[in-house]
């Protein structure tokens, strides 16, 4: 599929919404920050990496003129 890489955009939904109930019970803390909060903040970074990767692929394609 030509636009298969766009499915990376679903990852933030799974991480930040889908897994929110799963990580809610984790009691472990880093620098006293509650784990569910760390999880959501990590999710922001994951989202940035996913969207950024999709962008790089889209842009590389348009430069090759393959769009």
């Amino acid at each position, binding site marked *: 599929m030509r636009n298969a890489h766009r499915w990376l955009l679903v990852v*933030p939904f799974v991480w930040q919404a889908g897994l929110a109930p799963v990580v809610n019970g984790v009691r472990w803390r880093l620098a006293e920050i509650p784990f*569910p909060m760390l999880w*959501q903040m990590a999710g922001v970074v994951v989202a940035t990496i996913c969207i950024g990767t999709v*962008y790089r692929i889209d842009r590389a394609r348009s430069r090759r003129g393959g769009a």
Partner: protein
Amino acid sequence: MTLAIATAIVLATVAGSLVYGTRYRRGTVSDWAIGGRRFGSVIFWFMNAGEVYTTFAILGISGYAYAAGAPAYIAFTSVSLSYALGYWLMPRIWHAGRRAGLITQADYFERRFGSRALGVVAALVGIAALLVYVQIQLTGLSLMVSILFGTALPKEAAVIIAAVLMVAYVLATGLRSAAFAAAVKDVLMIVIVLVLAFAAAHAVGLGSISDVFATVQDKYPGIGSLPGYASDPADPAMGPLWFATSALSIALGNWVFPHLFQVSFAARDVNSIRRNAVWQPLYSLAYFFIVLLGFAALLAVPGLKDSNAALLTFVAHAFPAWLVGVVAGAGILLAIAPGSVLLLSIGTLVARNVYGAVRRDVPDRTGLRVSRAAMIVAAAVAVLMTLADTRALLTILLYAYSAIGQLAPAVILSFLWRRITAWGAFAGIVAGFAALLAPPLTDAWQAIAPGIDNGFVALLVNAAVTVLVSLVTRAPSAEAVSIADQSLAIDEQSD
């Protein structure tokens, strides 16, 4: 001194906005309402950030952290999900706008569905939601003024002055001035939030940021995970299902606010939009400091009745007057920068999709005049609404988001499915409103899935009805459908 510093910041920003806006002024509706479709990556990023980080966002999220705890994490979730979807959706909106010369969201509805009536419905729903949203900004502002300035500036006067400022600096020059004010606001806000956050631990008598987290979790067990310390852990009201479905509702609802269509149309090219979608979520990490300040406030000034006031009460309580003045100045910009864009969108909707539906082929100059007049009227209405209403900010916003969110299934399906019809969209909106507002229905959802966001259920009902009714009504013309057709798009443009 507090008042003087705040006034200086606000007036300097308004003046700067006017100068910046005037440089680009061309006197057309497109120029005024959507910056002539010429915003590059940087200004486009600030324009978006301007609409994400508002008085509500800052006061509401710190208030959530203060009153409950973990539910405030939704700030991290909703921005990333909005832009993960936005990466896909915004370029589509932008292409349709460029191809068909659209300026408002209701223009899109009218053209894509080939129905002037649906355009009017979309415009009216949009105007109502935007008015509530302006009201939220003004309510946040009046709260801020009453806490930070005390009796130096009466609340009513502050609300009226803020509304006048919102109108004043975009009336002549339009969206570009609003983008400038948004940029000043965001730079100022980041600096202030960092200063406050690092001073917060000291202000509550602790050594470090970690100590604030440790202490608040000792004193308020359960604050770090859903549903927060204030509810029974078994209470679904702010539990994980609420969290996930509310975040989805916000991500979907965000894009169908009319002003975000106009912001999308303002981009110069697709890459400005995509780059913004990559970098916008990272900014939401700044909410770490907002949550921290909410927790610090809980330690320093516990027991406040209005949780939205927590952050500001803490600031007024713990920091010197000059710093309070800077915070107040930035806080006022936090309300008037997004507020002006909302009012501008209302003005454009009225001129193009309400006035324009009655009198066809309105000339550009008349359109601009009607837009400006409508903007002034809308500001006056929002002032009256603000002075008469005192509900909690968050309740109002989630309500408005859910209501306007009923346009989301039609918008998203219109880019995916050629067969969607005006009647389908209309029936979906009506069914969605019913599912959202009728108590027997909302009780039923809560019985089936306790804690689920009613707005989210309404979206599902809306989407199902939209599809069913579309299948049995006549499809829009091929010409109408073509404006949302990506295969015709000059999809990728070089940098």
